[in-house]
């Protein structure tokens, strides 16, 4: 779960990490009021994408009037398809040097990893690998002072800046661990005089751990249907094509989509119904599938923990209750396959044995 910059900065403040004075506003009037307090100010679109600077989503202003104008402009914008609904108005800070600092999880070392660079302010992908210091963190030890001193040495950071890092980095790491973050990123981390200030904040919280963070806000980038899927505990992504696809397992669902594309079709969605779903959950998944208004439906079940008969029964139920008339391509193998096929036969559906056949058929029936 990505957090807006202003929320990330609230968390930073809670952990003792310095941030610029500022406040979140939702109207040009509020923006003008806030800017009046700071004189020179910056108005920043609050959107969950990193490219807002290039997209013109950030404005520097010198007066409340200018703040009002710019806020109006920004609130009318879309950045990478995301509407701008909130702004952060902050005092302008005078920056001597920009650093990059982040902590995330490194699957390869199965550990947190600290990333530090003296090339702050630019897109992280643009920083040459040799100028980005990567330090895997032993979760048992955490980020101890010695590690920060060694990191600073490698980057040539000494004196007062090193001292600041020795204070800041452990705080950021504590936030990362205690709040179950997947990513905490400060870019740029601004050296202003002798102090380090987080000029930006990117915080992503692990959704699987949200249950133990009742205090955190709930932010979503999902569509209404994706939200509905989340409620149902299903992995669902809207893709905008013609064939509604459901399979059991993330990998096979992806592979099914790949095959749809390979044979010239367009998938309406990614829907992994997961393993071992019961009748109700399966029916819910099918309802979701219909809600994308597809031209055809492709269901690809390789029953392991999932039982073929349950999927077939659920389909029969939903088809009847909703009067579904869409063409369907069904693939059904594995646990309780015979029983499942029998149920489908009663509806006049003959399930395929191979994914390939099922996908080809689905593409055919999806064409106008």
């Amino acid at each position, binding site marked *: 779960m990505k957090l807006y910059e202003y929320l990330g900065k609230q968390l930073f403040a809670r952990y003792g990490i310095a941030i610029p004075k500022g406040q979140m506003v939702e109207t040009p009037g509020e923006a003008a009021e806030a800017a009046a307090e700071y004189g020179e100010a910056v108005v920043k679109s609050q959107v969950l994408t990193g490219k807002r600077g290039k997209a013109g989503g950030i404005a520097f202003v010198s007066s409340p009037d200018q703040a009002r104008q710019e806020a109006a402009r920004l609130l009318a914008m879309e950045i990478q398809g995301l509407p701008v609904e909130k702004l952060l108005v902050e005092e302008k800070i005078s920056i001597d040097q920009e650093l990059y600092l982040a902590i995330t*999880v490194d699957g390869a070392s199965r*550990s947190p990893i600290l990333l530090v660079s003296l090339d702050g302010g630019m897109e992280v992908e643009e920083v040459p690998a040799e100028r980005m210091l990567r330090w895997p963190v032993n979760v048992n030890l955490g980020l101890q002072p010695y590690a920060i001193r060694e990191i600073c040495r490698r980057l040539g950071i000494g004196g007062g800046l090193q001292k600041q890092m020795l204070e800041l980095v452990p705080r950021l790491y504590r936030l990362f661990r205690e709040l179950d973050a997947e990513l905490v990123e400060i870019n740029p981390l601004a050296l202003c005089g002798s102090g380090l200030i987080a000029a930006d904040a990117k915080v992503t919280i692990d959704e699987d751990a949200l249950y133990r963070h009742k205090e955190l806000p709930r932010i979503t980038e999902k569509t209404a249907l994706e939200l509905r899927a989340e409620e149902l505990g299903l992995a669902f992504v809207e893709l905008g094509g013609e064939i509604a696809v459901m399979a059991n397992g993330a990998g096979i669902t992806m592979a099914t989509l790949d095959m749809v594309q390979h044979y010239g079709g367009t998938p309406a969605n990614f829907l992994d119904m997961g393993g071992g779903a019961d009748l109700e959950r399966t029916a819910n998944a099918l309802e979701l599938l219909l809600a994308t208004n597809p031209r055809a439906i492709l269901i690809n079940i390789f029953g392991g923990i999932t039982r073929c008969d349950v999927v077939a029964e659920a389909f029969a139920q939903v088809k009847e209750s909703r009067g579904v008339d869409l063409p369907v391509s069904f693939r059904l193998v594995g646990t309780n396959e015979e029983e499942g096929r029998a149920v489908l036969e009663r509806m006049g559906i003959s399930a395929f044995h191979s994914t390939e056949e099922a996908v080809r058929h689905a593409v055919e029936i999806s064409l106008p």
Partner: protein
Amino acid sequence: MAIYINKSTRVLVQGITGRQGSFHTAQMLAYGTRLVGGTSPGKSGQVVEGLPVYDTVFEAMEAEPAEASILFIPAPFARDAAYEAIDAGIKLLVVITEGIPLHDALDIMDYAHREGTVVVGPNTFGLVSSGQCKIGIMPNRFYVPGPVGVVSRSGTLSYEIVGNLSDAGLGTTTVVGMGGDRVVGLGFIDVLKEFEKDPATEVVVLVGEIGGSAEEEASRFIAAHMSKPVVAYIAGKSAPPGKRMGHAGAIIEGGRGTFASKIEALHEAKVRVAELPFEVPSLVREALGNS
């Protein structure tokens, strides 16, 4: 021969009294796995599928030691269960549970590493040494002995591919599911090393997906250290960037972990890459012919 597990491996089921735990206990027994018991706090003395139930792993190990354990424990309690298994002396831990918090997974891996326990998963279908021992939730019938080692990031997709192989008369030595989470215990390279050493494995099938850099790293390892031929299939060619495709690991972020970069790395390592899952058997045949 096989890797990690064989017919003498004694296996415990943590969370044996739950719906999934009991169902798969029956399935594993049917496959021939040497299950020695299960745990469920407060349910010591019960019997599931003929197996004794214990309150704790320590109690189970006192009654009959096990080398491996499979976890059917809800995500909020999985870390504790993993700690327990490791502390009690389990050396191979198969974590089926989905949705374990990322930081809990980090903790589990750290402790397992310290104690020398091999973790498979989390969010894995498990592993099976065909004809000998299955510790997982995959359907029994496709896992028949043969010369192919399989390692996969995703479950059902690997069933599909192993099913295709067995339909084509190609059996497997061991099939290992790494798990779909961002942080998992066994990685491609760990498993590839074992397959390289296993005399019964003649060819290895690697089933990957978009996201992360595991396939790229595996490719470098293959180029440098594998004498046996490798066949690969990567899922997610059609996936849009920035969207999480079910698996926590399957997300393309900031231009990393793309389908293209993985395919390129595999080609450089002279791995035979299948465009679609059902092309895997013919590539395996080809590799077997050449080797």
